[in-house]
């Protein structure tokens, strides 16, 4: 592999990238003080980095191509997760048991700070699963998902501020309002082709944020809304620490509920229609599936979860402002779905853990967080579009026909 022509290729790539990044990476100007700073060290790093990366890049491209060839030759590539599933289910079951025990004792073992972080992770799990319905199952690229999240958060904050409505009253309301906005946006735009949908939802997300920022009388503008009450339990008010633990379990509850619902939807009549629509829209419609209605259902259902998590988010942070609902947030949720595996529930859970915990615990990553998200989206699409854990279609047990005869 390390022959001369390979070296030459990498050398060229490295020179190209040194040239490419020269003005942005090497020169930094301070136009006010009229100083130019030359950072030659960066050029060196880019050179070395791209030299090594180009080897890795070509290696994976070759891997991918040989993988494709294998599929064409009729060889099966059994995904890791399926191996796990088809293997002894005791392992899977004990894994689940361990995880749930760990989750149950977590807030009592670790600090409040850690519990808050885990709550955040769980919220993103729910958001990811919600978006997964829209992007992963139905194949609709929604880049304004955060708008529905904002709808939920602001409905709790405002309904509480004006009418004193409590968390438990607004939680279902937030879900309904999320779904309502989903339908409101979805109805006109779901007739459009997929790529137009992406840009319209992106625009819609920005509109919601801009309105929240500028309509001071309604949303209190950029200064946001403070003193949002935390959730109560049968009228009991908790201390901060208790409330954190309570919230943690609430979010676990929501996450479990979401996982349950998404799992059931996947293998239902509606779920199959979503996947078929994603696979081939024209054929799907010709087979009798109402395109707009089916898409609308996915869109509204995805928005419902975002609305609910929005309410929870407002209750958790007790303060919200439009800055929490930027496009970056939508991009983060999308990265979770793409990294984990579009359409795959365990994938989304793992994706959320990686993308939320990594920047949290490895401080060095925090700065490069967004750079990382961007890179993840590109690299996953190029090398592993199915994500870490690819979605496995259900096989049906039929009378006299073992479900997986052909897999073995």
């Amino acid at each position, binding site marked *: 592999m390390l022959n001369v022509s390979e070296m030459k290729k990498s050398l060229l790539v490295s020179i190209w990238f040194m040239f490419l990044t020269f003005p942005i990476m090497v020169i930094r100007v301070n136009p006010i003080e009229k100083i130019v700073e030359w950072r030659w060290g960066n050029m060196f790093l880019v050179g070395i980095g791209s030299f090594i990366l180009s080897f890795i890049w070509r290696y994976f491209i070759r891997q991918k191509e040989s993988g494709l060839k294998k599929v064409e030759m009729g060889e099966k590539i059994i995904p890791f997760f399926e191996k796990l599933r088809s293997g002894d289910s005791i392992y899977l079951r004990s894994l689940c048991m361990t995880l749930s025990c760990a989750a149950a004792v977590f807030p009592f073992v670790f600090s409040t700070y850690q519990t808050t972080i885990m709550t955040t992770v769980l919220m993103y799990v729910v958001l990811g699963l919600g978006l997964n319905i829209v992007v992963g199952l139905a194949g609709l690229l929604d880049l304004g998902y955060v708008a529905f999240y904002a709808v939920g958060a602001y409905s709790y904050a405002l309904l509480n501020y004006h009418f004193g409505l409590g968390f438990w009253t607004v939680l279902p309301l937030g879900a309904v309002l999320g779904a309502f906005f989903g339908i409101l946006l979805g109805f006109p735009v779901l007739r459009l082709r997929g790529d137009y949908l992406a*840009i319209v939802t992106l625009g819609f997300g920005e509109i919601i944020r801009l309105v929240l920022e500028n309509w001071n009388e309604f949303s209190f503008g950029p200064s946001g809304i403070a003193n949002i009450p935390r959730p109560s339990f049968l009228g009991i008010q908790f201390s901060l620490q208790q409330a954190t633990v309570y919230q943690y379990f609430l979010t676990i509850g929501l996450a479990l509920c979401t996982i349950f619902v998404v799992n059931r939807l996947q293998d239902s009549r509606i779920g199959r229609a979503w996947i078929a629509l994603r696979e081939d829209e024209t054929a799907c419609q010709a087979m009798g599936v109402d395109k707009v209605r089916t898409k609308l259902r996915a869109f509204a259902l995805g928005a419902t979860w975002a609305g609910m998590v929005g309410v929870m988010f407002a209750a958790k942070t007790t303060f919200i402002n439009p800055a929490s609902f930027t496009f970056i947030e939508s991009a983060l949720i999308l990265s979770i779905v793409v990294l984990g595996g579009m359409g795959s529930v365990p994938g989304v859970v793992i994706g959320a853990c990686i993308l939320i915990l990594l920047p949290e615990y490895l401080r060095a990553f925090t700065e490069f967080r967004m750079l990382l998200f*961007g890179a993840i989206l590109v690299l996953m*699409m190029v090398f592993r579009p199915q994500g870490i854990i690819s979605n496995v279609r259900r096989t049906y047990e039929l009378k006299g026909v073992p479900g997986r005869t052909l897999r073995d």
Partner: protein
Amino acid sequence: MEYFLQLLLGGLTRGSIYALIALGYTMVYGIIELINFAHGEIYMIGAFTALIMSSVLTLYGFNEVSIIVLSSLIALIYSSAYGFTVEKIAYKPLRGAPRLSPLISAIGMSIFLQNYVLLAQTSDFLPFPTLIPEFNFMKNYEHVFGSTELVIVVTTVLVMILLTILIKFTKIGRAMRATAQDKKMAMLVGINVNKIISVTFIIGSVMAAIGGILIASHIGQINFYIGFIAGIKAFTAAVLGGIGSIPGAVLGGFVLGWTESFATGYVSSDYEDVFAFALLVLILIFRPEGILGKSSSQKV
């Protein structure tokens, strides 16, 4: 009346910039049917490179004309290099993949480039030097239409003419049109499709960079985020005119420019971006094929 004229000409200036960026979207879409979300970032990188190079050249005591020429030229070279590389990394490996894949990859590329500039440079707004000189003969009209605006509009018109000639009358233009029509057939008649796609990205990037330099000297400051909003708006312009259509992109750019200019002038300036997005949503709902676009029926 003067206010109206001011808004009209302001819209024309804005529209020119949108048109320049929209052309890149439309050409790429015409050839590989992809919304190149990273296109706005190419425009931003063009402006940044021009800013950096002009500062460096100023510091080394170059004269005014050579600063303008050199920094613009370098900016154009760099942005086309970025456009070329982006295509090779993020889109070329995805030919033939499901439609969603290159779209997600494009979003990722856009986020990556934004943060690359943010990290390597700064998150603050940087003052952009006035590259465009003041013309004496424009002095009397300065309150409605300055020298910069004049240069923007004239440059845009010139670029459009050049592009039209390139596409209509040159060999490479013919090859581009053929590739846009049918990639497989183009390949069969001996057109190097990969090369044509690269050329398309390069031409689109050059125009985006021209737009970037012009708008930066018009507004006077830039940061890493300018490409994102400008990108969405230019895309709106492209859709407005009919995506895939070159005159459509120009028309769409002007219509959007005027809409924004008048809406902010007469209604409210707080919602500047909302008008553009609302226009996008409306056009997609009522006339998704755009003003000049033909309604296309899918191949079955």
